[in-house]
């Protein structure tokens, strides 16, 4: 199984990375660009795990390690891809 995890800066928390990229895109002529927010995208392969229980474990990983909940939110989805690499 594959867990796809999205970690994003919390609302209201300054995102200097996003700010800088928005400015750069404007400078490159992408005038239509509004807000940009940059987070992490993490793929975790899980051996032999499945279903509800696996989801619970992924949540735990996020809470314990992958997201810094003081400044970041996270969400995730799990896909059963038969063990193939994405």
């Amino acid at each position, binding site marked *: 199984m594959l867990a796809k995890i999205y970690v994003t800066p919390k609302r*209201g928390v*300054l995102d200097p990375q996003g700010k800088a990229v928005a400015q750069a895109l404007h400078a490159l002529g992408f005038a239509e660009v509004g807000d940009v927010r940059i987070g992490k995208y993490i793929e975790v392969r899980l051996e032999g795990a499945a279903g509800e229980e696996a989801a619970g474990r992924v949540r735990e990983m996020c809470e314990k390690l992958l997201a810094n909940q*003081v400044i970041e939110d996270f969400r995730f989805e799990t896909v059963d891809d038969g063990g193939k690499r994405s």
Partner: protein
Amino acid sequence: MSERPPVTVRTAEEHGLTAEEWEKIVSILGRPPTFEELGVFSAMWSEHCSYKSSRAHLKSLPTSALHVIQGPGENAGAVDIGDGLAAVFKIESHNHPSFIEPYQGAATGVGGILRDVFTMGARPIANLNSLRFGAIDHPRTPQLVKGVVAGIGGYGNCVGVATVGGEVYFDAGYDQNILVNAFTLGIARHERIFRAAASGVGNPVIYVGSRTGRDGIHGASMASAEFAEDSEEKRPTVQVGDPFTEKLLLEACLELMESDCLVAIQDMGAAGLTSSSVEMAGRGGLGIEIDLDRVPQREEGMSAYEILLSESQERMLLVAQAGREPDVKRIFDKWDLQAAVIGRVTDDGLFRARWHGEEAVRIPVQPVSMQAPLYRRPAEEPKNLNEMQELSLASLPEPRDCEEALKKLLGSPNLCSKRWVYEQYDSLVRGHTVIGPGSDAAVLRIKGSARGLAVTVDCNSRYCLLDPYVGAVIAVCEASRNLAVSGARPLGLSDCLNFGNPEKPPVMWQFQQAIAGIRDACLSLAIPVVSGNVSFYNDTDGRSIPPTPTIAMVGLIDDVSRCLAQGFRRAGDVIVLLGRSREELGGSEFLATIHGQVRGTPPWIDLGLEKRVQGFVRAAAADGWLRSAHDVSEGGVAVALAECCLASPDRLGARVDLEPSMRSDALLFGESQSRVLLSVDRQQWPRLRDRAQRDGVPAEAIGEVGSPHLEIGDWIDVPLDELAAIWDGALERALRVVA
């Protein structure tokens, strides 16, 4: 601004103000404050901004000397360093934010102190940091250390200011309350030192830097919950640092200072826009009027209260000459920064803030500072002090194997190499670094001059716990000694007084004792205090941290090519021990590491001898008589010798003999003060000995440099490679616990 909740004494109490303070506010205004005004008072009268518990005591510190250009009271202190230049410096704490979010807390701590220094017109050339963490095996420690160190590096490296030194200690007393103290040193030309006093009625007040968000709003969390329907939305958020913007702000401000448009400038630190406005108006004896709608905002729907009290980073407030707004704007445009005129200087002595066309704040400026609360809080010696100070050496068994003890000490988190920490810092950028991290003090050259500056930061909080007066005396002496062994003469110091809750009489007692210690040491060594910071309320669950009066000190070297580092340089040199060794182990690293005890009284210190030793080393260094110098501190002579070997560029060992005049552990590991290890050319030694005798400095040749081993009498004979393996990687090994 309709439908606002009535502001009462209860609201004030929720803002951390007392009933008497509330009465005072009402009498100053002649009416109850608005909600925004209450926010302003609570911020300005907080311990952090008003120093209400410490002010009375800080007055006793010596702050003047002929070379002091700016003492305490401005954003940073400044001392003359010759050639029309000044060294501008300050240390500041960022303890609580770093415990909550170590990376960002430490990063924004560095950002804040950098702004304090460049606000004065100084180009920052060096950063230092003083760190205290809990026990190394406390489950939270590794993450805190990694986060804090990465944050300090992440910010300083990106801004392009070299981090050249610091200290790191681990002690269970900081398990729940780490300390992150950041220091910046800058250089300014005398005539370009800027101050934060508004002047010129009608001059524009200009906001520059990042937009304002809801970052770290003081006291707002509970207060706003009452009237906000969407309280989640308005919760104050952790401050995230943006070092790139800081770099632009630094360059733009320094460029602006070269022009003649600038009247006054102040960074927006604690209590943000509010304190910078009130302080600039207050120092100039004038008023300031601002329009909150014109403040650049990051988020929608911010309230007046939030804009006034936001602590968003990388912002500055300045007063410019009327009519020069376009020049200011042009400079900030060049650096892609915002500059918004948000108000003007007035002659009415009021701080006024308009929002949505109404006046939300109308406060007389002088009373906010002049009538700020001032407390002489009760002080009382801690009940367990006598018991803690008891130590009977007779009951301690002497170590059977001193070599084992040395290895254990060198591998202990407090004495091992801090390379893992300082390699994460750019210690070279801008090319001033003559001696970087890894010696007693860092040494920086002054470009275009033969001179150099030496900087160090020191405090042994174990000594301060056992006797805060003596501990503080030693902190000042050790800092000054670290400068002396680098060849420098101290010019001034900046202190960061980290203590527990001042409302507790034992904490207040520690504080008063420490101040007295700093004062006496400064008077004796003739070192003025030119800036500083007090951090109270470092307690968690009713437990206070050990008193930690951190001392950052700056010194001058007339010929920087004569500066000294601690590592041995040449085989065959004579090793000399200066000072007197006593049989004392109280509060030592040896006692803590080998016997697991923190007790006894700190080492004896004789300020007269201290002064003579330092003067002697400095003079000998200036005359080029010495090859290396190192002060003897934690771990005693044995550890100091090992450090001289390990810091030696060629990893030279040493053969040493010590007169067995006392217990072996006290002889090898005792921390008697005012001692220094020198290495000198054999030819030079007789001359040096005579001079020492003349100067009343005990000096003894104890051995010789050069051997692949460190040998000390019959006690120790260990290959340097073995010591290096223990010492070098110890911190990394200890921290490589689960990420």
